[in-house]
Every structure is written in C-alpha cells, then in structure tokens.
C-alpha cells in the first residue's frame, strides 16, 4: 500500500500499525499494543520499529542507540538532583497516535482549558494542543499550503512519513549532526523516537511563509521523543516554527526531543520555538545545527513552564563565513528550573556568532544560563558576541550564569556582557505616577525586557507570548 493512498483515505499514519498487522497476519488490530509496556528494553525498541514498518538500518540504529543509552551515565552537571529523580522504568516509551487522539476534551485539566480561553485560542487549535484529536485535515488553508509547497519541491512531513517516502535523504542526513553517543538523552531519543518534522528545501528555494508544526496534523506532533530533521539545500531559505505559547498538556513526564538542522552552502534556516510545558514535565532537548560555508542558522528559543528544562541550542560553523545566532528567553517560576543556554563551535575562518540570552526568575524560580563558545585554532578572524541578561522579580528567585569560552584562534573579536537586574523602585514609581498599577508596571518592564525576543516573533506569537507572561505573572507579584 502506498502511503499517499493512506492519507487520501484519511487514515494517516495512525493506521500504519493496522496495515502492518494485516500484512503480517495480525488479524485484529485491537490485539496489538496501543501503548508500549512501561520501561525500556530491546523488545520495546523492536516493537516500535516494527510497528512503524521501518527499514532495517533504522531498526539497527535504534538498538545501538539503546545500548549507548544504557551504558551512558547520567550527566554530572546541570540539576543533577532532579535528573537523578527520573525513573526510566516508569515511562511508556511509545504511545500509538490513535490512543493519543482518543483522549477527550473532558479529560483535559480545567486550568489548561482556562488558559486556552484566556489566550483566545480557537476551539479546534485548543483540542489539538491539548492532545485531543486534530481536526485540521479538512481545512482548506492546510491543503492549499501543502499544494504550494509540493510545487516548489519542498518536502514537509512528519519524521515517520519522511523516512517512508524519502528514505534516501533521511539516511544521508539523519543523526549526522547529533549522533546517539552525543549525550544520554540523545541516545534515548534515538532509540525510541517518534514524530517530529522532516523538511527538505531544494537548492535556491525561498520558503516565503514560516512552516509551522501544526500545519501537519495527521501525525504525532507532540511526541515525547520527537525527532526533527531540517535540510536547507544550497542557497535556500526556510523558517520553521515549533510549538506555541499555549501550555502543552501531557500526561507524560519526560520529553526528550532531538532537532537537527543542516544549512548547506549559503542557506538560511531560522528555527523558532516557544514552549510552555505543564509544570510536571522534564524537558531535556538536544538541538544542533550545522552551518556550511556562507550559511546562516538562527535559533529563536522561548522556554516557559516545565519542572526542569535543559536545552542549549547549538550551531556548528563548519564552513567559511557561516553565521550562527541564538536568541533565547526563559521564565522560571515557582518550583521550576530553566537551565538553558547556547553553544557555538567556530570550526572555520571568518565565522561569526551572536548569543542573546534573557531570563526572568520569579516566585523562587531558578534560571541558569549555560553557554559554550569554542573557536578552533584554524578558525581565525571570527567574531563572537554573547549577552546574558537576567531579571529577578523578587528576592526568593535565583539566576546563575555558566559561560565558557575556549578560544584558540588568532584575530578573534569577542564581546561578552552579563547583567543581573532587579526592577528598581524608582522605575515602579515612575510608571505608577502615570496611572499604572504596580502589577501593570512590572509587567510593562518585563515585556520591555524580553522585547528583543518578541520582536523576532511573528505578530500573533508575540501577542500570545505577552499575554501568557501576563497570566504567569498574575498573583505572583505585588
């Protein structure tokens, strides 16, 4: 059966398992598991791969990754206390899409629904965001967009679909930026990945509108172990937007995604993420980009919610004249630790990078900036600019910076600035004397603080983000 036919019948990948069952003699799809049993083993990995009907090399890749995961110790840095509290045997590593879509709106917690209301997110989108079955498929917008992309030769699929329909491209690039051995969580993702986006932009093609994850619906968008691969071929341009400002509700407590970007000569990729996880989530993500000669990669990364986030978007500047930019904000509230930052590796001459990190800590939350800039000896004439700005809303909150610079080349210009600030009483008085309440004044100052970030977002996201921060700040100050 051809996958295109499947989609035409509105079955989508949710039915892949059914197809597999029919082909290989499972008579009743219901007999097959909807959820993998708790815990991680080679059997589980084998089942996931077989269920998806993957090629042999991917199955092998998963098994090898699992061995690496099992052998690797937990990282000895970051919030080790929280990391060590993860019980890997208490997690379902695969949940079939049908199962997820079966969740009803009634099961979504009241506070999440309320936030949707207040953010003014349309009904259909809310259900999608909350993990309730998606209804976008019939939408005209979505179809015409898909047709447009197809005409330009742009491939935009979920990762599983990418592997099925374009195995040669996937095999060439998959895991070349982030090998399973990179870190324990990358290994975990490699073993059990599911969902995520696959994008290929042909040489010279400029994708005019941002590609957004929620355009592709009939897929596992919010997987625990998403795997995204974007390849921008020579001279092409693409902007991808992941997530949204609405809280992502999930019953799963561990999310560990891997995102690989490859910008070939002269290409441009911007990857925008705004994530607002529910407060029980461990969000441990590996994001890395390879920028070839003259290419530009920009990570725009917003982190809200979660219990612990550890995320350091990285750019490898491997070709002369490549440019990397990482712009991030983190908001850490009560009981939260946002350990976020950036990594840039200058591995070619005349490359440049800019890191701008902004964090807000409130109500006892903790925001850490952790960054690495490395310049190899042959990478002369590089430029680096790092700016870390932390804003503390109250005395109970905490901010730390762990910047590392390893510079082994000559003729390098490095600028580094780090600031921790509090909202000054005089600033509050100034704004209250103009009729704002103290809470309104604080919010205005905070919105101003993150303005360098929000101005890079598409308008609707910027508006949502500001409103979201307003909700987050409610009751926590004043």
């Amino acid at each position: 059966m051809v996958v295109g036919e499947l989609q035409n019948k509105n079955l989508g990948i949710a039915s892949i398992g059914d197809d597999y069952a029919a082909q290989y003699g499972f008579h009743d799809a219901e007999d097959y598991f909807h959820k993998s049993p708790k815990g991680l083993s080679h059997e589980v990995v084998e089942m996931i791969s077989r269920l998806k009907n993957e090629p042999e090399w991917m199955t092998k890749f998963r098994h090898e990754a699992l061995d690496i995961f099992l052998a690797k110790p937990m990282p000895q840095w970051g919030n080790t206390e929280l990391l060590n509290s993860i019980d890997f045997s208490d997690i379902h590593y695969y949940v079939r899409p049908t199962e997820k879509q079966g969740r009803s709106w009634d099961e979504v917690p009241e506070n999440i629904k309320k936030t949707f209301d207040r953010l003014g997110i349309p009904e259909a989108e809310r259900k999608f965001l909350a993990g309730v079955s998606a209804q976008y498929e019939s939408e005209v917008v979505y179809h015409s967009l898909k047709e447009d992309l197809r005409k330009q030769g742009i491939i935009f699929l979920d990762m599983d679909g990418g592997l099925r329909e374009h195995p040669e491209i996937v095999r060439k690039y998959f895991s070349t930026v982030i090998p399973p051995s990179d870190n324990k969580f990358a290994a975990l993702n490699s073993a059990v990945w599911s969902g995520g986006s696959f994008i290929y932009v042909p040489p010279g093609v400029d994708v005019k509108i941002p590609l957004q994850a929620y355009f592709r619906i009939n897929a596992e968008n919010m997987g625990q172990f998403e795997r995204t691969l974007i390849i921008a071929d020579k001279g092409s341009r693409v902007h991808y937007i992941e997530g949204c400002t609405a809280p992502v509700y999930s019953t799963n407590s561990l999310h560990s995604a891997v995102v690989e970007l490859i910008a070939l000569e002269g290409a441009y990729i911007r990857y925008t993420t705004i994530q607002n996880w529910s407060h029980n989530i461990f969000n441990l993500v590996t994001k890395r980009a390879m920028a070839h000669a003259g290419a530009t990669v920009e990570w725009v990364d917003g982190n809200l919610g979660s219990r612990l986030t550890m995320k350091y978007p990285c750019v490898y500047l491997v070709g002369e004249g490549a440019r990397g930019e990482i712009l991030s904000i983190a908001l850490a509230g009560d009981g939260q630790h946002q350990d976020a930052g950036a990594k840039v590796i200058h591995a070619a001459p005349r490359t440049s990078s800019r890191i701008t990190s902004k964090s807000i800590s409130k109500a006892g939350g903790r925001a850490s900036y952790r960054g690495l800039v490395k310049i190899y000896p042959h990478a002369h004439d590089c430029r680096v600019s790092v700016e870390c700005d932390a804003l503390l809303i109250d005395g109970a909150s905490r901010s730390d910076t762990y910047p590392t610079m390893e510079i082994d080349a000559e003729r390098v210009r490095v600028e580094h600035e780090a600031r921790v600030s509090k909202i000054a009483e005089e600033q509050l008085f100034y704004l209250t004397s103009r009729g704002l309440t103290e809470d309104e004044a604080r919010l205005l100052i905070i919105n101003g603080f993150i303005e360098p970030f929000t101005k890079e977002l598409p308008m609707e996201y910027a508006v949502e983000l500001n409103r979201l921060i307003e909700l987050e700040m409610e009751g926590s100050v004043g």
Partner: protein
Amino acid sequence: MSDRKNVFAFYDIHVEIEGKEVVKGVTLEIKPGEKHAIMGPNGSGKSSLANALAGHPNYRITSGQAYLAGKNLLELDATERARAGLFLAFQYPLAIPGVTVANFLRTAIKASGGDEERLKNFRKELLEKFKLLDIDHSFAARYLNDGFSGGEKKRIEILQMAMLKPLVAILDETDSGLDIDALKIVSHGINTFAHKDGGVLLVTHYQRILNYVKPDRIHVMMDGRIVRSGGPELALQLEEQGYDWLKIEPAGVGGR
C-alpha cells in the same frame, strides 16, 4: 474642599524622608488654568514636596491635607492619584528599555481609563503633540528615555503631560538641562496646557523659565517652608538679589 471643582489644594503639608522632616508645613491652592511657581535654593524641600504629593513611597506625608477636584489625595496611592488627574514631570525621568514611547503612552492612557475613542485617535493625537513640542516622529518607536539626552527626556515628560491630560501638573525642575531653544518649546507646551485649564505647579530654582512661562503666583521655599509669595515681580527680585535677603524674613508666611 469637595465643593470646588478641579482645584488642587494642599494645606500644612509636612514631609519626612528617612525620619527627617524636609517639608515643614506648606499650603497652596491652584485653580484650573493657574500657573504657580515654587522657587528656592537646593535642599529647600521643593522636590520632596513634589514627590510626596505624587505619592512616592519613600516620602512620607506626616500631616496635612491634599485635595484634587474634591478627592482626598492622601487616601490614594500613586496610581490612584495619577488616575485622579495628578501628573508629576520627573526631574530625572527613568528609562524603560524595550518599551516604546508610543506603546507606553497607549498603556498609560488605557490605565487612566482612556476610552475607545481616545485610543482610536491615539496616533493622530500623538503626531499633533510631537509637532507642538517639536519632537521627531522617530521617537514614537524609541524605547522610553533609553539613551535619550537630558533635554529629550524633559521634552518627553511634557509630551506625556500633553497626552495624559491631567487636571494638574507638577513640573519638577523641568527647565534644568535645557538649552534656550528647548526651553522655549517646553514652555510653549506648558502654556498650551494651562491655557486649556490645566493647573501648573512649576518647581525650579532658576528664574530663566519664568521668562516664557508667566506664573500667576510665585512662592519662595526655604528650609521646608514657603517664606514669601508674590506676583511675577518676585522672580525678578530673586534674579537680582538671590535668596539671601529672604533668610532674615520670618518663616511661615505660607499660602497666598
């Protein structure tokens, strides 16, 4: 006082900062459209008076009364005083990085209960005021006071006054740091405001601005008290003779 429409009046105001009394009983009444100036040397308590009246939390009013349009200001916090129609132009306006002048003004108008109609005409009104105060349009998109020169900040304070349309404006040393051209423009803004029935309390220690903003009354403040009040001629006398001759005068003349 509650029967007197839009009058700004305070009686026997005493102000303490960090336990030290810096204003020792000051009384004034400003009617709509009236311009008053408080003059005095450094440390005479005039800025403390201005900040205390606007509700600065560090300036404690220990006794006295203050009313605006019949509202008892001392029962209100800074936000509520602003919403009641009191405006303070700061001596040292603060920067709010990331917040544009236009966005800030829109937020402030909304906060003070500006209706839909006002917000709809916001852009047009802002451009008019820019013209009135000879401010370049590019300031609408610049971050409030962030990297502004001293003179630019003062001009933006007057812009805020013009946009927020308070009943009364206390201008704390708005003239300091202005060159003569800027002084004329700022004065024009103040006169326009007063002409539309705004009450003005100008706090300054230079006579210079009074060449352009002709006050109805001048009050001389020394050591926390008003030691003399008079008409515009008092300013000239101060210009010629300085403050010293007043030091021997008995304190507590007060009022008008």
